[in-house]
C-alpha cells in the first residue's frame, strides 16, 4: 500500500499539472474560432449527458493543424526558435560551466556565499532585469557610452533590437539554471579520482576531459534542458530586446492569441511546440535508460 501511494503521488502530480492542462489545450486546438465568450466552438455541455459529449466530439477536427502546414511562417518560426534556443543553450553552457567549476573548487567556507551570489539576481523581478538590458544595450546605453569613451569604437554599436540582444538576454536570464545543476554534480565529485589519475600519469587536461566532464554529465544535461526548454518558447526577451524581424514561436503564438483572437490556432501552435519538446526528451531518456541497463 505504501509503495502504491509512493508511486501514485508523482503520477497524480503529472496528471493534474501536465496532462489535464495539455488535454484542455488539445481540445481547444481541435475546435473552431467563434465570436463568443470564450471565443471558440463547440463548447462541451455536460448537462446534455452522453449525447452532448458525442456531438461535441463529432465537431472536433484537425483543420487547424493542416492550416499550420500551409503557411511557411509557422515552420520558419519553429526552426528559428530551435536555432536561437540551441545557440543560447550552448553559450550558457560555455559561460556557466567555468563558473560552476570555479565554485566547486573554491574553499568550503566560500561556497555558501558564492551560491548566494548566483541566486541573488532572482530576488529582482525577471521583467525589470530584462528591461535594464535595454538601458545597457541601446544606442545611447551604458555599453556604447563606455566603448565610445575608451575609444574602442567611434560609432555606437547597434545591439538592441537584434538577435544578439536576444542571446545576451537569454544567457543572462538562464545562467543560474545552468550553473546550479552543474555545480551540484561537481561538488559531489570525489577529488581522489583526479589524484589517482595524476598518479597514473594522466595530464590535468585529459583528467578533466576523462573524469570531470563525464562525472558532471548529469548536471550538464539537466542544465541544458532547464535552459533550452524555456528559451524555445520565450516571449518576453525577444519582444523586449529583439527586433521586429526576430522570428520566434512565442511571438507567433502571441499574435495568434491576441491579434487574430484565434484561440484554436494558437492552441495548435502550442501543441506542436510541446510535441517538439516532449518527443526528443522521451527518446533521449529511453536511450539513457537503455545505456544504463547495458552498463550494468
Amino acid at each position: 500500500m505504501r509503495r502504491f501511494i509512493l508511486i501514485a503521488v508523482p503520477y497524480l502530480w503529472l496528471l493534474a499539472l501536465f496532462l489535464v492542462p495539455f488535454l484542455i489545450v488539445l481540445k481547444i486546438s481541435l475546435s473552431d474560432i467563434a465570436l463568443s465568450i470564450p471565443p471558440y466552438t463547440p463548447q462541451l455541455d455536460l448537462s446534455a449527458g452522453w449525447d452532448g459529449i458525442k456531438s461535441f466530439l463529432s465537431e472536433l477536427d484537425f483543420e487547424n493543424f493542416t492550416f499550420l502546414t500551409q503557411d511557411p511562417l509557422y515552420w520558419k518560426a519553429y526552426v528559428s526558435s530551435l536555432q536561437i534556443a540551441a545557440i543560447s543553450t550552448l553559450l550558457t553552457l560555455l559561460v556557466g560551466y567555468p563558473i560552476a567549476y570555479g565554485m566547486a573548487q573554491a574553499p568550503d567556507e566560500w561556497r555558501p556565499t558564492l551560491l548566494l551570489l548566483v541566486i541573488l539576481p532572482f530576488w529582482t523581478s525577471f521583467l525589470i532585469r530584462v528591461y535594464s538590458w535595454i538601458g545597457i544595450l541601446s544606442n545611447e546605453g551604458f555599453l556604447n557610452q563606455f566603448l565610445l569613451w575608451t575609444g574602442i569604437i567611434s560609432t555606437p554599436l547597434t545591439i538592441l533590437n537584434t538577435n544578439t540582444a536576444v542571446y545576451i538576454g537569454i544567457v543572462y536570464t538562464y545562467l543560474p539554471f545552468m550553473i546550479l545543476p552543474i555545480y551540484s554534480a561537481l561538488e559531489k565529485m570525489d577529488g581522489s579520482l583526479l589524484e589517482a589519475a595524476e598518479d597514473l600519469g594522466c595530464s590535468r587536461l585529459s583528467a578533466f576531459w576523462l573524469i570531470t566532464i563525464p562525472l558532471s554529465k548529469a548536471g550538464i544535461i539537466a542544465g541544458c534542458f532547464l535552459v533550452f526548454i524555456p528559451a524555445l518558447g520565450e516571449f518576453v526577451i525577444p519582444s523586449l530586446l529583439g527586433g521586429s524581424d526576430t522570428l520566434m514561436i512565442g511571438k507567433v503564438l502571441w499574435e495568434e492569441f491576441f491579434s487574430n483572437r484565434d484561440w484554436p490556432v494558437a492552441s495548435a501552435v502550442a501543441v506542436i511546440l510541446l510535441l517538439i519538446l516532449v518527443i526528443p526528451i522521451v527518446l533521449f531518456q529511453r536511450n539513457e535508460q537503455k545505456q544504463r541497463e547495458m552498463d550494468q
Partner: protein
Amino acid sequence: MRHQLLTMTATIALMAGAAAAQEVRVYNWSDYIDEELLAKFEAETGLKLIYDVFDSNEVLETKLLAGGSGYDVVVPSGTFLQRQIQAGAFQKLDKSKLPNLSNMWDVVSSRTEQYDPENAYSINYMWGTTGIGVNVGKVTEILGEDAPIDSLSLIFDPANAEKLAACGIMMLDAPAEMIPAALKFLGEDPNSHDPDVIAKTEPVFMAIRPYIQKFHSSEYINALANGDICVALGWSGDVLQARDRAAEAENGVEIAYNAAKEGAQMWFDQMAIPVDAPNVEGAHAFLNFIMDAQNMAAASNYVYYANGNAASKEFLVEDVIGDPAIYPSEEALNNLFTTTPWDAGVQRTVTRLWTKIKSGT
C-alpha cells in the same frame, strides 16, 4: 489612448477610503486620466475605486472574451467595442441612472453609433485622430520649406521616406490604423474589408520598409521629443505629448501634428460595462461621474485628448479647446474617416500581411 505597449499592465490600486466600502473596478488605458478625479469619485460616492490600466486593445479583449474579468467598467476602442458587443461581452446601459447623458456631444455620439447602435452599450470617453507628427526643423531642412508635412506622401512616397530615413521614421505597430492610412494614400476606401484591396497596401509598405526605423506604438513619443526621429505616424495625443515634452526640455525641437490632408482616421475610446460586472450599480455611478462636464474637462485638460462631452467645452483650457490638432475645425472634421472591424478571416489576412511587412517573412 494606447500609451505604452509594454505587454504588461501596470496596476494602480487606490487604497483610499474605508476598507469595508463597496468596490468599483475600472480598467482604462494607461496615462489616460487626471488621477485627482479618482479620489474625487471616492469622496463623492463613498465607493472604493480600484483603477487598473492596460496598454493594448488586444489585452483587454482577451480578458473580456475569456470571461470573468472582474471589472465593472472597461474602455475599448470603437472597432473592438463593436466586435465585443457581438460576442455578448457587454450589458446595455440603464440610461435612467445616467442623467449626465444629456451632456454628450451629438457630433461624436452620432459617429459612435456605427459601432454601438443607439449608443446602447457605451459612452464616449475620449476620441482623437491618427496622423503625422514631424520634427519641423529637420524635415524642412531635408525636404525644403514646402515639405508635405500634412500629407501621407511624406511617409508613403519612397522618395521622401528614403531622404527622411537618415533622421528616422517610426510607425505604429497597429495594422488597424496603418493599413487604412495606406489605403487612403492609394485612393482606396480606407474601410475596405476586401482582402484583394487590402493586399494592394503590401507593395506600398514593402517599398518604404527599409526606411522605417521601427514599428512601435509608444516609443515614438520620446524619440520625437528627443529629436531621435523626425517623422512618426501615430496618435494625436501622443504626438502632442511629445511636442510638450520637447518644449519643456527647450532642446530646440519643434514638433507639429497634422491629420493627413488626404483624410485621417478618427477613433473613439468608449466606456462600457461587462456583462458579468460584479457591481453594475457602481459602474453606472462611475459613468455618470465621468460624464459630469467639469470632471470630463479635467480629464481632457490633463491628457490632451478631445472628449465626447459638449457641456465640458466651457471648462476646457485654451491649450486644448483652441488647438485644431485636438479639436479640429468643422471642415477638418468632415475630412476624418472611421473604420469598422474586420471579421476573423480578414483579420487573419491582415495580421499575416503585417507580420510580413515587419519581419520580411
